[in-house]
Every structure is written in C-alpha cells, then in structure tokens.
C-alpha cells in the first residue's frame, strides 16, 4: 500500500464529499433534525397510574382507603357521574389508564350479603395485563371499602430487583430514541459513500487511477478510510450535540468506530451494486431497513426476538444503550463489541470483495 497515494485519493474524496450538495445537505439537515427532535422529546417518565373513580357516597371511606396512594404512584380522579367517567376515558382526558364505577349503596349491599357489581372502564387500546392489574386493584379496593378482609392472605413477600432498579427512573423517550438517531446518522454516510464509489465506477475514473502508481489496494483503502471517517465523525458530532459524549467516552468511541466500519462495508457494497442514483438508493435501503430493526426494538425493551439479536446492528445498538443509559463499561458490553467486531470483518470483507470484482470488470 502506498500511503502517499492513499492520502491523495482520500483528500480528493473528502473534497468531493464537501462539494456534494445533496449529501452535505442531507447530513446537515439530518443532524439538525435529530438534535432538535431529541431535545424536544420528554426526558422524564411519568410513572404514576391515573385512575378515574365514580363512587357516590363513599368519599370519606375512599379518602381513608387511598390515603397512601400518591406515594405508591396512584393518582385518583373522581367523577360525579358514571357517564362523565366513561367520556373522560374515551376522550383520553387526564391520561387515565382505567376507571372504576362503584354503585351507590355499595357498603350496605355488601353488608346485606348482596353482590353489587363494580364496573371497570378500560380504554380499547389498553393491553390485557393493564386490564388484569386494574381488575385486581378494583377487587382489593372493594374489600377495603367494604371493610371485609381479602379471601386469602398473601404470604411473606420479599422483592428482589435483578439489575439496576429503575423504579422512578425509567428509560425516557429521549434515551430510547438515541440509538435510532445514531443509527440513521451512520446510515446517511452509507448513502454518501455509496454515491462516491458508484461515481468512480460509472464514470470509470477508477480505471484512470489504476494506470498510475495507484493500486487497487490503495483505492480500496482510501474508500474504507473515507467511509469510516465520515460515519465516525458524524456519529461523534451527533453524540456531542446530544450531550452524551461525556458518558463512558472510551467505550462509546470504540462502539461508534466499529459501527462506522460496519456501515462502511455496506456503503462499499451498495456503491458497487448500484449503477445510478436510484440503484444506490435501492441497494442501500435493502440493507438499511433490516438493519434498522434493532434500533427500533429499543423502543420496546425486552421485545427483541432471537432473529433481531442476530442482526449486525444489534450489538451496536445494545452497546450504545448500555453505555449511554446504563453507564456500562467495556466489561459490560464486551459481548456486544465482540459481535460487532465479527460483523465489521464480514461487512467490510464482502464490501471490498464486491468492489474489487466490480473494478476488475471495468
């Protein structure tokens, strides 16, 4: 490899990238968009459970029964009529997760041995587990109001939290979106690199390069360095603007560098495969879309299926989440980094091989 030649090609490519209005505009707009949206997203999680209640004549009893509710994250809003409660739930007023309507004369009926019916209102989109939880809560509340002991005692219970206890400190939407923004920042550079590579091929300028002292290995090295440099610089800039660069700086930089190498391989592959702008977009999207799945899976913790964990970007996303959200160090993300290193080799090897074969056919 000839360092002088690699440097000459790299300088030329950096200059070309800086003059490419499309990708420069997309890069700047992309970063600005991610940063603005990030800072607009809520950085807290409201962990309280908001419950609507219609219980005529039971205000005093309920005041006693629910005295400790706010401390336990339960916020109760009372409604004068059952219709008002149902309307509020339907309209989504007050972020109510459910509503309870306790009939008038509830205590007297219970004491008389009757079985009054308590109505549970839940929004249509409420998941089954929320309905079950509110149902259980309604039963306990009914027993408390009626002054009747529950049918069974709960045996001694000790709560053991595995991992970091995030009660009161849930992952915010802002934190959840962070890996998504980083992923898309990296992916913009996939397109930019692919466009540069495709340009060299379609205009056959690479042929002119290869009858000078420049060798194919110099060309491939320059493109690899360029792609990695662009993606890494953008990812680091984004992390700085999101104010998370100071959190686990070492592990984060290593993760972003590996992620940049990973997307560089994809960029080389897309650039070698696409013959024109639409071709580049098609091939790049064909890789980007499945690789984006792990980034979106972060929005729903614990939902990543086995096949999602096998995707090349899973380690990248998981490591970023671990470092920036959990404060993970090298030891904590070693598995993710190891997987990422393997995928970097695979991605880069395929990208370089395809580009090499493409150039050989010119």
């Amino acid at each position, binding site marked *: 490899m000839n360092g002088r030649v690699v440097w*000459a090609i790299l300088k030329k490519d950096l*200059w070309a990238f800086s003059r490419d209005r499309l990708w420069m505009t997309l890069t700047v707009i992309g970063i600005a968009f991610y940063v603005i949206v990030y800072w607009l997203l809520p950085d807290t999680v409201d962990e309280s459970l908001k419950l609507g209640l219609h219980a005529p004549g039971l205000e005093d009893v309920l005041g006693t029964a629910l005295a400790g509710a706010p401390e336990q994250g339960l916020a109760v809003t009372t409604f004068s009529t059952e219709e008002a409660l149902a309307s509020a739930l339907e309209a989504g007023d007050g972020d109510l997760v459910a509503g309870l309507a306790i009939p008038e004369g509830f205590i007297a009926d219970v004491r008389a041995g009757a079985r009054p019916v308590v109505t549970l209102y839940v929004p249509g989109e409420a998941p089954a587990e929320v309905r079950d939880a509110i149902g259980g809560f309604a039963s306990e509340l009914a027993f408390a109001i009626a002054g009747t002991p529950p049918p069974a005692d709960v045996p001694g219970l000790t709560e053991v939290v595995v991992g970091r206890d995030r009660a009161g400190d849930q992952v915010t939407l802002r934190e959840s979106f962070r890996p998504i923004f980083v992923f898309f920042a990296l992916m913009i550079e996939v397109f930019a690199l692919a466009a540069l590579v495709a340009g060299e091929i379609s*205009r056959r300028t690479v042929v*002119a390069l290869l009858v000078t002292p420049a060798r194919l290995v110099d060309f491939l090295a320059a493109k690899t360095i360029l792609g990695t440099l662009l993606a890494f610089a953008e990812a680091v800039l984004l992390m700085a603007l999101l104010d998370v660069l100071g959190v686990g700086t070492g592990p984060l930089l290593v993760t972003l560098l590996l992620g940049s190498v990973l997307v560089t391989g994809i960029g080389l592959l897309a650039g070698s495969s696409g013959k024109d702008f639409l071709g580049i977009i098609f091939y790049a999207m064909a890789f980007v879309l499945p690789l984006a799945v792990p980034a979106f899976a972060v929005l729903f913790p614990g939902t990543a299926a086995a096949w999602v964990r096998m995707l090349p970007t899973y380690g990248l996303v998981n490591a970023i989440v671990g470092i920036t959200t959990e404060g993970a160090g090298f030891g904590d993300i070693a598995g993710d980094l190891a997987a990422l290193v393997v995928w970097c080799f695979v991605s880069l090897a395929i990208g370089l091989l395809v580009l090499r074969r493409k150039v050989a056919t010119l």
Partner: protein
Amino acid sequence: MADTAAVHGHDHDHGHDHGHDHHQRHDPARDDPAIRAHAIAFAYDGSPAVAGISFEVQPGEVLGFLGPNGAGKSTTIKMLTGQLVPDAGTIEVLGMGMPKRRNEVQARMGVVFEEKNLYEEMTGIANLRFFAELFGTEVDTDALLERVDLRDRGEDRVADYSKGMRQRLMVARALVNRPDVLFLDEPTDGLDPVSARAVRELIRDEARRGAAVVLTTHDMHEADDLSDRVAFIDEGRVIAMDTPESLKLEYGQRSVRVRRRVGDAVEEEVIGLDDDGAADRVRDAVAREGLLTVHTDEATLEDIFVQLAGRGLV
C-alpha cells in the same frame, strides 16, 4: 505481411515526413524498443479478442493501430497498460516485463482513454494536480493547460467543459508525469478540426521529446498523418504493419486519370502506373488534343485495409 513482423529502421525518406525529426535521434541499432509485445493473446469468456499479436515500438516512434470496432485495438492497449493480463505471450515496456513490473511501468506511462473518465466535479487544474500527486510529481498546470489551449478554463469545473475540451484535458492529464510511453485510444474522437490538429501536434511533440506513442484510431487520415508505422488489426490479428507510404506502395494501385474533350463529350482514361508501358500511355494521353485535366490517384489506408481484410474500417 506476417503479423509477427516488427519493421524497424523503415525508410523515412519515402516522402512521409510529418515534421518529425525523431529519426535523427532514433537509432534502432542503439535504442532498445520502448515496447515489445510478443504473441500476446486475450479472450473474453473464451471469445478471442486478440490472437497472437507481436510488435515493437521504438522511443520517439508513433505506431498507429487501425481497425474496425471489435478488432482488438483497445484490448491490446489494455494489455499494454496493465489493465488486462494477457492469456498468452509476453509484454515488455521500457525493458520491464508486464504485468510483473506494472508499478514501475505505470509510473512512466500516460494513457488517454476512449471514455472521458475525468473527475467532472473538479476543475481542470484540480484534475491535473490530483494525478500529478498520484505520480508523486510536481506539475506546471498553467504550462500544460496552455499546450492544450485550456489555460483560460483551468479554474472551471470539468462538468462545464465541452466534449472537445474534455478530450484535450484527457491528453493533458496523460502528460502530467512526462511519460516515456504514451497510449492514446481514439485521441481526437469528437474533436473539431482545429482541436484535432492541436492534439495531433501535441502527440508529435511528445514523440519528438522521445516518448514512444501507441494510438488507436478509426480515422485513416489521422493514422496516415500521425503514425510512423500503422498496424492494421482485424479479428484480433495484425494483418499488415509498415509505414503508411510502404503500405501504399505495396498494396495500393497507383494510376493517372486523364480527362479530355472529344466533341461535345468528356472522355476519361485511367492508366495504371504499374501496368506495362504505362509511361508511354501517359505520354500519349496528355499529348492528345482536348486535354482537360490530369490527376494522379493513390490508394488510401482504408482502400488497403478493405483489400486486405475484405471489409471496411467501420
């Protein structure tokens, strides 16, 4: 003529003097060939493109490859420049084997491609500087652009150049390293007559400087005008190779066309100069009454190619 023939020391006094003075410096007995190709062959997916071509080019000599599309001209150039590795045969450029010593050879050669593979988003000057950097050399871009009449457009983006300007910049790019061997694939393709003449003069200048020049062309006039020797290529083989003048003498038919008025009609007589008694017949023809015009006819390179290959150059 055998396709393995390498004709050197050809007679430059056949009246085929294009203004070259390189024959004063070019002494075949003293100089090693700048390019030596022996029985080179190449096939694309089993389909032969070049089938055993041999030739030599001396420093300061211009060898023109003339042939129709698909004859094997560009494939030959690609093998000589290291873009393709021959399936058979050997190539030496500047005394170095190709492709084994491709790095050293490519550092001393210049190539003008048929396609205009310039960096269009860069200026003309930036293109030249970039390639000079690849060669690890300094380049006087102003002087080089002046030679191709682009000095006042050097700061413009190549994307804004006309086809002719791009072609001239391609030629300038091939000269950034002052090459010892120059390969030009259709160097005046698409140029207007004035630009084409300027490029031809540039090629002559490079030959005068001592560069060995190999060019391919469809244009028989260009080949005739520029080349010290031409090689006719057809179906991957050299079917003839010599100086244009020698080819014309060997394969062409020389004749005199005499037109005279006979009554109200115009009569034309064509007298072959290689025929028996030609001199007497010419004398008689011009001595008769009513003489209007006398023309000498000479075969063109295309005529000769058609005669040898049985088809035209296009």
